[in-house]
């Protein structure tokens, strides 16, 4: 079996476990320890940040401008609008400054 296929299947099993696991495991406990809950709550933002920060660190002006505009737009509108705004800035600036 190829590595790619292995990753997909293992990723699918892991994902299904998160979707059924909360019901099977978490709901059996009377309450989760608040520190554990605070840690769990932080997981998505913490993981996703690590995919942005190093990319921003090694980015050029076009990429940084795109991230900046996208961040500002996201304060006022949804994910789709911010994504399109960031992409538009990126494509335009790459076109003009190469």
């Amino acid at each position, binding site marked *: 079996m190829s590595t790619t296929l292995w990753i997909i299947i293992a990723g699918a099993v892991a994902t299904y476990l998160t979707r059924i696991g909360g*019901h099977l495991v978490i709901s059996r406990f009377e309450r989760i320890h608040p520190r554990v809950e605070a*840690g769990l709550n932080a997981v998505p933002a913490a993981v996703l940040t690590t995919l942005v*920060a190093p990319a921003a660190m090694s980015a050029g002006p076009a990429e940084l401008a795109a991230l900046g505009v996208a961040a500002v737009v996201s304060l006022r509108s949804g994910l*789709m609008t911010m994504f399109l705004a960031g992409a538009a800035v*990126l*494509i335009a600036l790459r076109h003009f400054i190469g």
Partner: protein
Amino acid sequence: MSDRRGEFWQGVRLSVPVVVASAPFAILFGALAVDNGFSVAEATLMSASIYGGASQLVGIELFGQHVAPWLVVLSIFAVNFRHVLYSAAVGKRIDHWPFLKQAIGYFFLVDPQYAEAERKGENGEEVTFAWYMGMALPIYVFWVAESALGALFGRLIPNPHAIGLDFLLPIYFLGLVMSFRKRPRWLPIVVASAVASMIAYKTVGSPWHVSIGALAGVLFAAAMPIRPEEPVTSDETAEVVS
């Protein structure tokens, strides 16, 4: 019977905005997956079996960086970990379903599905299997089909750099980070993860910056003084499959 049909179509109606909003991301996923070395069939299988946009995009990004396979899987798990909280909350609403229907239902528990099920439950209405699948099936079918379309289309893009394809993911991930900003201590957690991941990227190197940065943010959150409990809320990502 007609009652059940009505429930089903009520669910279908709720799926429409989600189908529209997730379409560009499904197509983007397909195109990027091919760009990162997936075949069209593999990209389609990933959408059909994982069915979680953000985690799929994280997965192919790391795969493209030649990160160790187990770490790719771990990262997919980490991004999807929020579903544990959805699952615990939704469990109360659907535990009157037969076991097999529950097992099927949990597979489709993406952010907007959770948000709508919670809203229906809080309104005092019964969350029925027909309603639930009425919402879930269109979202799922379009997600998988559009991923395949994106993958087919992705092979035809002559110059991915010119249309920014290589940097669209960081922009998208930034959007997801921003969508969690209502959560407690969001900013310090993001700063802790950002700083730790950048230092790790420079010193230890990729792909460890992902685990190290994430761990820094999570440990920081767990170590802070405890605040009064807040209910589980679905984040603003609820508008897309993620």
